[in-house]
């Protein structure tokens, strides 16, 4: 908690943060920037750095940005809190939620 670096800032443009980029893995190649149908991103003014997720409120969760990224895990779609749908394990009756605290292990089955 710092009392010095407090600035004026508007409210977030959207209730959601659709895109999460890992700056450690992103090389700033801008492939995601150039495939996005809605221009949600703009390139970082500094070449080779993480694109800016500027127009978050226009994201459609369509995913080509993730598909185009050459670096596994550099970018992912972040489903907002209101999208975290529950499911019930049939044999135990227990509910699980997307984004829950102690999630079950991932299911590695690829699509058909």
């Amino acid at each position, binding site marked *: 908690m710092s009392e010095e670096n407090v600035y*004026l800032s*508007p409210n977030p*443009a*959207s*209730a*959601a943060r*659709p895109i999460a980029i890992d700056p450690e893995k992103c090389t700033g190649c801008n492939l995601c920037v*150039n*495939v*996005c*149908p*809605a*221009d949600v991103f*703009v*390139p*970082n*003014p500094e070449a080779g750095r993480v694109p800016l997720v500027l*127009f*978050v*409120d*226009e*994201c*459609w*969760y*369509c*995913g*080509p*940005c*993730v*598909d*185009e990224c050459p670096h596994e895990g550099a970018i992912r*779609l972040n*489903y*907002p809190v*209101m*999208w975290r*749908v*529950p*499911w*019930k*394990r*049939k*044999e135990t009756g227990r509910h*699980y939620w*997307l*984004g*829950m605290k102690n*999630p*079950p*292990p*991932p*299911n*590695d*089955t*690829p*699509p*058909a």
Partner: protein
Amino acid sequence: MSWGTWIDLNAGNDAMKWPYPIRYGQEDAVDVDVLVLGGGIAGCWAAISAAEQGAKVAILERGSILGSGAGTGCDHWQWAITDVPGVSLSAEDFTQALVDNHGGYNNGISRYIQARDGYETLLELEEMGGKVRDTEDTFKGAEFRDEQTKLLFAYDYENRIVMRVWGMTFKRALRSRLRRLGVDIHERVALTGLLTERRGEDATAVVGATGLNVRTGAFNVFTAKATVLCAARPQRIWTYSTELAGSCDLRMPGAMGGGYAAAWRAGTEFAMMEKSIPAGLSINPSAPHGSGHPSNTWYPCTIVDANGKEVPWVDRDGHALETFEERCRPAPGQRFFIKGGGQSSLPHQGLRDYQGPRLTNVDTLVEKGEIELPLYADLPSLPAHERRAIFGLMVGQEAKTKHTYANYTHAGFDPDRDMLLSYQQLIGGGGYGTSAEGAKTVLGFPSIRNAHSGTTGGPVVDWNLRTNLEGLYAAGDGMLGGNDHSHAATTGRYAGRRAAWFARQATARSGSREQIEAEKRRVYGPLQRKDGVHWKELLAGINKTMQAYCGAVKSEGLLRMALEAGEDLKHVVDTELAAVNPHDLANALSVVDILTAGIDIIVPACLARRASSAFLHFSRAEYPAMDPPEWQKFVTIRQEDGVVKQGERPLNLGAPFEENYLAHRPAAPIGA
């Protein structure tokens, strides 16, 4: 603090500088034989087929070819009939069924083209690299698989009118083909208007289009002998919430009606624009197809209640289905069933004839205490192939929902063991989507509508898929009766060819300087003000106007109010609408397009139909009788010098289909 002040605060901060070169007002000129507007499914196919005919082709797209359009993916290839292995129906009979299913309010021309050319188109797509067969034998032995061709079917397994496909491969295949054919691709260019030329007394020809680069603000002038409109249809007319982030609309946010607005201003004739349906669950609380349901992608998934009790399925006659298999067969005495077909606020014969199995009305069962909420999609109980087809293929291999698959499985969701929550109780009734509007619409019924889902209104076309304007063709969702992926593909392919043939015979075109200058003044208008009404405020104003005066219940008085309020909104556009960068400007212009679609097209269309119609979900307070015989027709509208002209067309447009299709097919290639 106003928006303008906020921007001033950032002046001089280099980190906040617009990252692309600013080229406001600078012109880029392109001259081609065929210009395609919109790079979605219809647009890609139109450009490919025109180029294959030897035409010089350019395509403009607001976003990127690979990422844009509703059809970046697709899980069903609908309604290909002719030559499909094992299909005994004729394209003629099927088209008639589809038209009847909508009470006549469908486009028999484009639907016949879809039924007849759909399989041929799919095979071409496969050659380009689209995956359409179960070559890995994942579904070997499944009831919905044709063992010889390895094609997979959906819904009605006996009649095979819909296929299951690997849609995420399609757009990439189309883009490769476009590139190989040397099509001139203009991405990040938003269509703003059509260039026209007067031909004689009352004929207009389209001779190109103008566009705005959404990154640089440059102005594009395209001239072309023929133009194909493929920019889909308007949405966000009654509602749009940026706060609900992407979950608000089925179709992509970039598709805001630029095509309709431009076509309208040029004088294109539209039909069925008075049709809209209750917006239903446009606030879908989950990722695309990321909650369980029994329809569409998830058909025919079992739904169970809180105690694991199955919600029963019924056939079209309300008879309970005993077995799972019966969900994929027509009812006794029924030829075949159509899913995703007609909707009406009243039952009618054409609906009943082709209605498929469905879940029993959930509302009634809850009321009677027979089932207990919440409900779940019971994937584990399904036959293994069905489970894998729904979650592994349909969800897992469609471009948008593959991310739902990835996110859910990463979080541990296992379709073999887990039941996904269903929000069926929010949707109501027995299905996904809504046909729940009662016959007696009462005041106070939610007035949030949409005119973009299902079979909608749009430009009227002939058997060349040409509009009433010389040189202007239309395809895909952005035409009368458009709705789905294979319809977009087949009509795009057909229209591109016709446009190329026309271009061979047409003389060179050039846009008039006067028109171009006028369009530039319109396009750059909002840049004159950095503080003022932002596009979101204008959009909200339009939405509210449409909710208040063009909602579920319409009347002459209310609709006239809509027109007056619309004039006010246009005044806001002229004097207050503000934009601060090319992205902002492009959005502002799109909202003006929404205003055109709502106030200039939809409201006059509603005024023109002086009768209520169950088929069109259309309720006029002063004309309560539903679908009187004299109003069973298409009402058409177009504008000429700012004056709305009404017309009409008979229902059953295009019939007899095969005869007309053949009559309009040239015996030898044109002009070759």
